[in-house]
């Protein structure tokens, strides 16, 4: 099945998001899901133009709001494969509250965050994942805020699939996305995706020196180890950045627990008859 649309990417030459695009395309192709049952939802930012590159359903929504839109879609029709493509400003800044709540609800959404540690589309301001000392147009004297650790946040909020990929390794990224889609529950894939235009600190070279794949010795069912690995960049002064699957566990999804959606997609429940309405009104008589 061809998942591509006729729309051409508008990323800067060399942008990390090309790699993420390739990875998502590969993941979908390998899974061969009917594209009419796929919805790709994004927010606002460079990475959020992603849905337009696909010939599936989807929405390019508001800054920070793809998760609630995606949640609404899943609750309305649990037959849809819902994927969120977004950036660090969207996911960890303006929309950070939604991340906590979608994780604890365990809605079956696969969220890919193209994390470039900068606000690109607004021409280079600090983002919630910019490192301390990062000089940007909004932090000309160096960033003084501790960066968010998205993996640790997602883990503590109850996410059931937590991974990190690197757009410099699209094959591995595709594998993480594919497994995220197959995972029954909320999956966060933080995707290190360098901004070649505005982020002069966290470049491909910078990442290549630091990124390493979690080995077979990492047990993704071990929550404590997952937290430890999630904190490794901070613990090593950003010398070691692990990628791969940090954590995966089984927990019923929101859709499986909700009184109504556990019986099947909401969209397929019948319309109430006038007798049903009368019954609903009965207690007010």
């Amino acid at each position, binding site marked *: 099945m061809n998942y591509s649309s006729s729309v051409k990417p508008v990323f800067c030459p060399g942008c990390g998001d090309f790699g993420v695009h390739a990875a998502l395309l590969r993941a979908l192709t390998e899974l061969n899901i009917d594209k009419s049952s796929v919805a790709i939802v994004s927010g606002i930012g460079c990475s959020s*133009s992603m849905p337009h590159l696909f010939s599936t359903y989807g929405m390019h929504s508001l800054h920070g709001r793809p998760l*609630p839109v995606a949640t*609404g*879609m899943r609750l*309305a*029709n649990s037959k849809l494969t819902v994927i969120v493509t977004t950036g660090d400003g969207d996911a960890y800044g303006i929309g950070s509250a939604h991340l906590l709540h979608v994780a604890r609800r365990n809605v079956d959404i696969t969220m890919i965050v193209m994390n470039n540690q900068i606000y690109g589309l607004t021409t280079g301001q600090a983002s919630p994942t910019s490192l301390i000392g990062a000089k940007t147009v909004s932090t000309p004297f160096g960033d003084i805020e501790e960066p968010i650790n998205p993996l640790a946040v997602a883990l503590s909020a109850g996410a059931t699939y937590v991974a990190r990929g690197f757009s410099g390794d699209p094959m591995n990224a595709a594998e993480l996305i594919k497994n995220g889609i197959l995972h029954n529950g909320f999956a966060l894939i933080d995707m290190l995706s360098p901004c070649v235009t505005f982020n002069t600190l966290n470049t491909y070279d910078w990442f290549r020196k630091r990124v390493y794949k979690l080995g077979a010795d990492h047990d993704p069912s071990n929550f404590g180890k997952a937290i430890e690995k999630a904190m490794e960049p901070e613990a090593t002064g950003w010398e070691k950045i692990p990628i791969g699957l940090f954590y995966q566990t089984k927990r019923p999804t929101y859709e499986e627990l909700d*009184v109504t959606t556990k019986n099947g997609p909401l969209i397929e429940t019948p319309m*109430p008859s006038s007798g049903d309405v009368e019954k609903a009104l009965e207690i007010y008589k």
Partner: protein
Amino acid sequence: MADIVIRIAASSGDGVESSGSLLSKIAARSGLNAYYSRGYQSVIRGGHVWSQVRISDAQIYSQGDGIDILVALNQDAIDNQSGQLNSGAFVIYDTSKANADVLKGKGYKLVGMPLIELAVENAGDPIARNVVSIGALLKILGLDIKVFEKILSEMFLRKGQAVVDNNVKAANAGYNFAGIEKAYELKGDGKARYIINGNTALAIGAYASGCKFYAAYPMTPASTIMNWFAANENRGVVFKQTEDEIAAINMTIGAATAGVRAMCGTSGGGFSLMVEGLGLAGMTETPIVVVESQRTGPSTGLPTKTEQGDMLFVMHASQGEFPRIVVAPRSVDEAFYVAADAFNLAERYQCPVIILMDLFLSESSRTVDSFDFSKVKVDRGKIATAAGSERFKRYEITPDGVSPRSIPGTQGLEFIAASDEHDEYGDLVSDVLAGLEISVETRRKMHEKRMRKIDTMLKNENVFVPHVDTEGADYYLVCFGSTTGAALEAAERLRAAGKKVGVISFNYLMPMDKEKTKMLLAGKKLIDVECNYTGQLAYLLAANAGIDIEHKILRYDGEPITAAYITEKANEIMLKW
């Protein structure tokens, strides 16, 4: 004919709310008309609260004025409420908690009752004093205590027959209390009625029309809509409590995009957070329904008090321009039909519909004879179901501005909805194309396409005009939404006093059929009646219909406007005219 206002006053936590709802239910089952409203505060225990139940054997449209029977369960109730007593009013007070000495010698009928003692004696629980007092009220009102006994047995059945028997005993102790006599002649018509509040009627109206998804964050006075959907999830609907109102509206947009009729609700503060989402629905042409139940603002304001201060806000909320429909139900039963209709309008025109409620309408209950389900018709608008040979144009430019939408899951009709300006396919014209000739033209055409839906609505729907009550009157009270009930009764009283006064009321406020509205209003002596400071409806009419209403009756102290309030002010205005 009798028309009686009963007020039960005490502290929060004393059960005046259940007393009010019980009394109104007894009236409704006795074939009478009732209107039940509450005065309460933002405290869970303590403070001063009351329930007001108006009972009549004639049709009533508002909560009534003054107090004919006061049930004072503590001293505060005597001290705070006696100013509103009508002449000759009954005052039943709990002798263990209050004395009514200050009211002696003023022509009131004072009835001291040891309510707590009677409750303990008969039901073994002081909480039953509300049941005792209702028993006493029924005697005075001349209502059949059997109706109450039946309600008590339904209520307490789960707790066992002993609890039922105790409560029935307590009710009869009140009913048979020495010195209480029947004082009114209420003639019920034998037909049991519904007694339901505005929010519940709205929620069930939405359910009736196939609304399956409701998302909200708790906020007074919208929360009872949430409570209904939460309690009725097993009827095949989903209620989602969200982290904030931003999530609520965006989930609603997601659910509506996926093809389910979806609604969210809040008050002004939460609506402020929803504003960006409202624009998203406008831009992506997603059919959603948003309930805004107004309370006294600005900011947190008076969270438990009413106002009509958000009308212009909801009409203009969001950056940019897009079609929207704003409708303010004028009564509890209208809230049911408006909610059902809102989804048809939203889907027919693929735009947000805002149902503008207010605390008074949301939380007041009134009797409704019946609901006409045949009026609830479902029209889902233009939906594309079969793929053509070309790529699907979700935002196809059409003469009426409405483009067929597809439901995700339908093969060959995939599209990406965009908050950016886009072309007929949904592809962006906002990035690499912005400012290019082709994009400038696309923007113009797409904006015109969306805005054209307003003309289509006005052409195809006949609801966007005001309602005239009493043709050929000399003066008209002009109002919208919940104020209408009190205005109708004020006009009735003024007519009874020899003044020819009618009412022109608005429910579907936006868009406005300017020509027809102008025709209906021009050349008439108009008095604007609203619960706000600036006269927002008058402003709207000046802007849209060129009608300038000089005389206004405005109330913005948080209390609902009453027929007496309007009558008095209208008399003053007419005297000077």
